[in-house]
């Protein structure tokens, strides 16, 4: 092992090293705390990661440092992907609980951290390995630029953007619940752990609309909130929100989440509409990556890879 050329054995070993490191971190400093990544920490981290990727790319291609060059190659990619399958498989086979759920004392898997895999250091480090390698690969194909690399870049850079911005941005995402009764403007909303947040907008419910299927169970077919969004500068935007049809205002998306009935009331007047307000400032970057992936997938359908003989870096798409 570690005699050149490196191959899958070395890639597999890197994974073992990362899992070991992750377990040590998990049981010494505790699980990954994603809230710590909130702005501006995530922006700094993003800059550091990109700098690191560029440094490894430079050391590998310009300085000829073998390990750095190898990190942008296929053996490393196969190893990282394989380990990511394993880590995600553990997550898929273990029942997961929400982040803020209390400790499950009767469940040994919870003590190990396996019920909160997204905060489990080994999984995070393996995904980080994959993401970092992906960054190096993208740089290698981007510089010098060739048009024939576009399909490759769309797929790899698209996935890189989704992974980086989706993960780093998750700490800046806000999801709040707002309970609005008819004709009572509301500007406060609740976080998942029950804190009250005051918003730069208010919502005035005009009418809650409810339709049922014509079956014996009278299951809901459609429910919607006819409402006005009031902004601080005094504008009033009229809109109708229903499931699958959110509205957008001032960087927030407003969703129909559910409905409830005020105690002691009957009929339509006593219904409280529950809205969910979501703010995700990193969403445009993630969506850019998503659209790149779609374009890349179309290339994947219509382009056959070229046959090349060198074994080092021959992925075409």
């Amino acid at each position, binding site marked *: 092992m570690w005699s050149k050329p490196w191959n899958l054995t070395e890639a597999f070993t890197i994974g073992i090293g990362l899992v070991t490191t992750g377990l040590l971190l998990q049981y010494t400093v505790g699980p990954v705390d994603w809230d710590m990544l909130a702005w501006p920490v995530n922006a700094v981290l993003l800059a550091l990661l990109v700098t690191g990727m560029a440094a490894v790319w430079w050391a590998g291609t310009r300085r000829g440092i073998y390990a750095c060059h190898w990190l942008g190659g*296929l*053996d490393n*990619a*196969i190893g990282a*992907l*394989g380990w*990511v*399958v394993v880590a*995600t*498989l553990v*997550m*898929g*086979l*273990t*029942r*997961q609980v929400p982040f803020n759920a209390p400790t499950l004392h009767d469940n040994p898997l919870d003590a190990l951290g396996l019920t909160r895999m*997204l905060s489990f250091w080994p999984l995070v480090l393996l995904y980080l390995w994959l993401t970092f390698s992906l960054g190096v690969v993208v740089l290698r194909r981007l510089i010098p630029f060739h048009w024939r690399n576009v399909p490759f870049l769309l797929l790899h850079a698209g996935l890189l953007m989704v992974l980086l911005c*989706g993960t780093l941005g998750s700490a800046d*995402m806000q*999801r709040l619940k707002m309970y609005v009764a008819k004709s009572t403007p509301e500007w406060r909303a609740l976080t998942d752990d029950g804190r009250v947040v005051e918003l730069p907008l208010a919502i005035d419910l005009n009418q809650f609309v409810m339709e049922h*299927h014509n*079956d014996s169970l009278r*299951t*809901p*077919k*459609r*429910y919607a909130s006819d409402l006005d969004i009031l902004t601080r500068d005094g504008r009033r935007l009229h809109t109708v929100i*229903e*499931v*699958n*049809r*959110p509205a957008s205002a001032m960087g927030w*998306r407003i*969703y129909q989440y559910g409905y409830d009935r005020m105690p002691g009331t009957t009929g339509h007047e006593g219904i409280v509409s529950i809205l*969910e307000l*979501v703010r*995700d400032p990193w*969403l445009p970057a*993630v969506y850019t990556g*998503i659209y790149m*992936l*779609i374009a890349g*997938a*179309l290339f*994947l*359908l219509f382009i*056959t*890879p070229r046959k090349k003989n060198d*074994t080092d870096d*021959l*992925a*075409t798409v």
Partner: protein
Amino acid sequence: MTWQLFSYFALAALILWAVGAVAAWRHNSWLARAATITGLAVFGTFIALMWVSLERPPLRTMGETRLWYSFFLPLVGLVVYARWRYRWILTFSTVMATVFVCVNLFKPEIHDKTLMPALQSPWFAPHVIIYMFAYALLGAAFVMAVYLLFFKRRRRPKGLGAEMSLTDQLVRAGLAFMTVGMIFGALWAKEAWGHYWSWDPKETWAAITWWAYLVYLHLRLRYPQRQAEALLLLVAAFVLLQVCWWGINYLPSAQGASVHTYAS
């Protein structure tokens, strides 16, 4: 149009597909194609009529998605046959379609008309149809893998050039559709549930499956000669795909935790 008429349409389509499969073995490629296409038209008509009578796309329950799978398998078989002239591929797709039709006949999981509000979305139909098509392509790749591993390789110890290339093509196309299907699901989730990815069990397993097929493609690029390992990986990836598709309905870790279980 109701499920009661399914057996007539299904029987007609299966007979036509079987005629096509036999014709392919007898080198009558014109009849093979014509019969398969007619069978697809018959089966497709049933799906279309179901769609009209349900007043929603028939995509909600396992029984309804099996309908699409039975339709797409002969379609993929036909494309592969027309392109590469594998005589056995139409037999395979017919047998697979028959299995799914039989499951629908004997364990129909029939279905009411109502669609909960979260499913009333323009993303719904493309998300599921594209996924079903991806599953059909990857199912064809799986059968190629089994065929090459256990039947063909013994006779061709030096390697399988054209066959491996067909398998790679199927995986690439399957993965491309799977990627688009997954992304459509993400875009829909953003509209319906407020976030594009929530690590719901179905999403976790979709990710596992997606990564596994990526391992296959990269392994093929790096080690084109390690065919047995690649084909075994393909078999394993298809098992993961089955868990993602219907296995999670029985998986203890996923019970009651998924937004993707509507049928119960």
